């Protein structure tokens, strides 16, 4: 997902306080910034919300790539609005993470020097305009699968940002599907582009949910803390079941020869992604890892004089106001 493989931090707190804390969560109470919380809860959330925020920010790059080359002025305005929303999502989430006692600059620096991760999906390139369709349809679609249940997460600020984000996401997925419909019903060349985009994005989208629960040792603690709401395999299955009929409507073929409806389980059987590739991308060896991090570092460094200049200006104004009083 936008937060993949989040390692749950161990907690060494007083068992009685831990039990009382767990009872609050089980009763459906929200945990707020000033409430007592286990160290492990706090640290795991910083990592998870931080990674989610970084994904929103880095996720602007593959789509930003096509803003200047959108086929019509209307498509350009829509894509610009979509990418701007993603910037907003990053900001909501950074603020939620900051309530846990980490600063914005610390979070940014941890992204820039690679100590914190962002979703593997954004390390794949967007080669044609059809990729704007596939990203909105599949990538935002997969994100929605995971974000909708997270609206009920136990941490108040995180839950509130997820609620805001979910309100905006369905526009993202629909504008993507709308692009796909146009291309898939267009000329042969357009249809080939749409099919090619689906071929390249399908397995990376399935990777977004993270490795199989069977291999994920950390999910149990996060589940009981209501930081993680569903299993990875469960969400992946739901995504496939929802997406296959949408591909059929487009007249496109999901690039999985073994994809087959299974009446017994009431869902599709499908091929999982290549997990070696996934781990390799996480290690920094995906097609665009270097480019993405370089772009973020450049933006941060090139913007330093603006950040400092605005602070100096604000300080000067404040001093002048004080002197006038």
């Amino acid at each position, binding site marked *: 997902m936008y937060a993949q493989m989040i390692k749950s931090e161990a907690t060494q707190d007083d068992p009685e306080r831990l039990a009382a804390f767990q009872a609050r969560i089980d009763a459906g109470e929200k945990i707020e910034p000033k409430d007592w919380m286990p160290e492990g809860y706090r640290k795991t959330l910083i990592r998870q919300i931080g990674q989610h925020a970084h994904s929103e920010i880095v996720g602007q790059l593959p789509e930003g790539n096509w803003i200047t080359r959108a086929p019509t002025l209307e498509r350009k305005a829509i894509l610009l609005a979509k990418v701007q929303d993603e910037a907003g999502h990053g900001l909501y989430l950074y*603020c939620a993470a900051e309530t846990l006692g980490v600063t914005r600059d610390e979070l940014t620096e941890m992204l820039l020097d690679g100590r914190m991760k962002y979703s593997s999906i954004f390390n794949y390139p967007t080669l044609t305009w059809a990729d704007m369709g596939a990203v909105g349809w599949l990538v935002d679609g997969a994100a929605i699968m995971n974000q909708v249940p997270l609206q009920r997460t136990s941490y108040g600020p995180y839950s*509130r*940002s997820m609620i805001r984000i979910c309100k905006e996401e369905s526009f993202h997925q629909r504008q993507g599907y709308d692009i796909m419909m146009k291309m898939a019903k267009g000329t042969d060349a357009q249809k080939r582009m749409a099919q090619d985009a689906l071929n390249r994005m399908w397995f990376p989208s399935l990777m977004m949910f993270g490795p199989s629960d069977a291999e994920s040792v950390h999910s149990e603690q996060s589940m009981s803390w209501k930081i993680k709401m569903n299993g990875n395999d469960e969400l992946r299955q739901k995504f496939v079941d929802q997406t296959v009929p949408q591909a059929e409507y487009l007249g496109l073929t999901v690039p999985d020869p073994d994809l087959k409806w299974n009446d017994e389980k009431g869902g599709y059987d499908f091929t999982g992604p290549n997990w070696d590739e996934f781990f390799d991308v996480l290690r920094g060896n995906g097609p665009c890892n270097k480019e993405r991090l370089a772009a973020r570092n450049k933006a941060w460094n090139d913007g330093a004089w603006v950040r400092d200049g605005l602070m100096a200006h604000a300080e000067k*104004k404040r001093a002048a106001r004080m002197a006038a009083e």
Partner: protein
Amino acid sequence: MKNEWPLWEVFIRGQHGMSHRHVGSLHAADEESAIKNARDVYTRRNEGVSIWVVAARHIAASSPSEKGPLYEPSESKVYRHPTFFDIPDEVGAM
């Protein structure tokens, strides 16, 4: 050099005459840019007609440990709710 922009809490009043409501926070160098940023971050879909920003350091908040002493006194005062009183049907709407 650590020179992080300060944090602002953002309050928005919607179209329908409700009070300003806390919507989130953001960083900005000063109040003017905080309002401009709040416009971009929190009102992209006509969510509001008025924005307040308050430097987060100026917000005083009650602490969770005071929950009992602060709110318990009102729990026993059920007569503060209109449903406490039974008004006969013959009296009509009240």
